[in-house]
């Protein structure tokens, strides 16, 4: 591959992987069973799209990916972009990239909850996943093995069928390095996100592995999804262990946590994180349910809360979910309930990945409210003033036009 005998796409891929592998002292490569690529057009730009299009123009044997490969949320929902203020140029870039991916044999799943909707990895499975929320869930909850693979590296893994064996593929990087004792167990989704955010901020490094005590009841998939996504967002953290819950930590000793001093996380830590965001009485321009995309269970929960109510005329509501969930939610009537509330339900996108700055400017959205601890962390840099509240409080705030 490196010599170019299998074409320029695989040659680039192997060269890319060797550069990255050398930086992290990888001794060899490990085969992967799946690849998952984050690649929204805002991140790619014309340069990134053109880069992938060059591979798409190669003969089929040289361009097809070698393992099942899927995609993270897109930046444009092609069934609903003009109403958001997205331009035809943005949609065209999206169309070009989709065509290029399809030529490579990539399945356009357009989801960051593939572990809930497509094919979750199994314990010990080596994979090349992008999207930090996907990686932290797969490593921690499923016991799979993946580094954060940015779009280029996920593409390289798809083309070569392997990835450099460094970081989370190695036992020694999966041992706990920080030990946290949770004094106030989380209850609803936003609580889980806030706790994950606090731990991520304290851990603060890709190479830190938190082990957590004090969670005595197994969380739901959605709860631990928000927990992990927030931890990865605030800390660039790709793996955690919860004693008695996640598969590599039946007890503290199994992950080496018994030799670490415990750091308590109390109500004061959680309150301090929430204090960074807007509060009661503040006006709200847009309420966003996304990051991660909503599962079918979350769609049902949200629809139940919204049923028979109506958003304030000055407050927009955006809901982002996976295409497969959207189809189910359509069939089950959840989308219709949300639309009757005044929400726009998008499929295959996630708010922060869909030209957040431009759609904010086009719609006059500055004051944003969400139940996602992850998205409020991201959007400050995009010119928003984000606020955080539970799903129920977000709906009530959308109804009143201000944070309740």
């Amino acid at each position, binding site marked *: 591959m490196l010599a170019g005998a299998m074409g320029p796409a695989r040659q680039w891929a192997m060269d*890319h992987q060797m*550069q*990255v592998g*050398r*930086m*992290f002292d990888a001794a060899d490569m490990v085969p992967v069973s799946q690849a998952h690529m*984050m*690649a*929204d057009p805002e*991140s*790619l*730009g*014309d*340069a*990134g799209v053109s*880069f992938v299009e060059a591979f798409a123009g190669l003969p089929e044997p040289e361009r097809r990916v070698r393992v099942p490969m899927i995609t993270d949320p897109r930046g444009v929902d092609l069934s609903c972009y003009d109403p958001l203020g997205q331009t035809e140029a943005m949609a065209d870039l999206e169309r070009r990239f989709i065509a290029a991916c399809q030529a490579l044999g990539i399945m356009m799943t357009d989801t960051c909850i593939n572990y809930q909707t497509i094919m979750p990895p199994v314990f010990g499975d080596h994979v090349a996943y*992008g*999207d*930090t929320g996907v990686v932290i869930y797969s490593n921690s909850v499923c016991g799979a093995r993946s*580094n*954060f*693979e*940015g*779009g*280029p*590296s996920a593409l390289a893994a798809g083309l070569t069928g392997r990835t450099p064996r460094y*970081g989370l593929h190695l036992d020694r990087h999966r041992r706990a390095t920080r030990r946290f004792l949770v004094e106030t167990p989380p209850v609803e989704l936003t609580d889980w996100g806030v706790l994950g955010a606090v731990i991520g901020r304290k851990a*603060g*490094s*890709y*190479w830190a592995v938190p082990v957590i005590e004090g969670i005595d009841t197994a969380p739901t998939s959605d709860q631990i999804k928000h927990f992990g996504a927030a931890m*990865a*967002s*605030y*800390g*660039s953290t790709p793996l955690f262990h919860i004693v008695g819950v996640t598969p590599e930590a039946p007890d503290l000793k199994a992950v080496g946590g018994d030799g670490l001093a415990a750091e308590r996380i109390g109500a004061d830590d959680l309150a301090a994180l929430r204090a960074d965001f807007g509060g009661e009485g503040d006006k709200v321009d847009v309420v966003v349910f996304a990051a991660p995309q909503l599962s079918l269970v979350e769609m049902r929960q949200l629809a139940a809360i919204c049923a028979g109510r109506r958003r304030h005329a000055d407050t927009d509501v955006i809901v982002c979910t996976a295409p497969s969930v959207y189809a189910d939610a359509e069939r089950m009537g959840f989308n219709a309930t949300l639309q009757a509330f005044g929400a726009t339900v998008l499929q295959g996108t996630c708010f*922060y*990945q869909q030209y957040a*700055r431009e759609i904010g400017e086009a719609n006059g959205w500055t004051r944003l409210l969400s139940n996602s601890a992850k998205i409020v*962390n*991201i959007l*400050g*840099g*995009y*010119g928003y003033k984000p606020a955080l509240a539970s799903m129920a409080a977000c709906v009530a705030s959308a109804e009143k036009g201000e944070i309740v």
Partner: protein
Amino acid sequence: MPRELKCHPGIGPTVAGEALTAADNFSARYDLDRIKGIFSRPQHALAGQSYKDKILVLNTAKGGVASAWMLHEMKARGIAPKAILFNAANTILAQGAALADMAMCDRFEDGDVTTLIPTGARVTVYPAEGRVVIED
């Protein structure tokens, strides 16, 4: 006298430029206005400052995977740093540097790189050799 810092061998070409330093972390998605070429996140230590053609010196990478494509996109438009030096890079930034052919190094032997290289210093980065030279 020039000072030389040793680090782990990195990625990308040899480059020289002016340092822009902060004891803060980095994400192209979270922290930048990539059109204007400035740090845009109000809480970032470099908020409002231009990163174009700078040698960024920061603590570590944070947040999501988008930075891998974004470094490539920024360089294609000519509004990008020349190099990024970290105490500890994460995988995403290293992957982005590889795609963008941007210089990147981390793991400095002499300690915290954000205290070793001041803003405004003239710096030459030799990624393949794992060394950085600070011109006085």
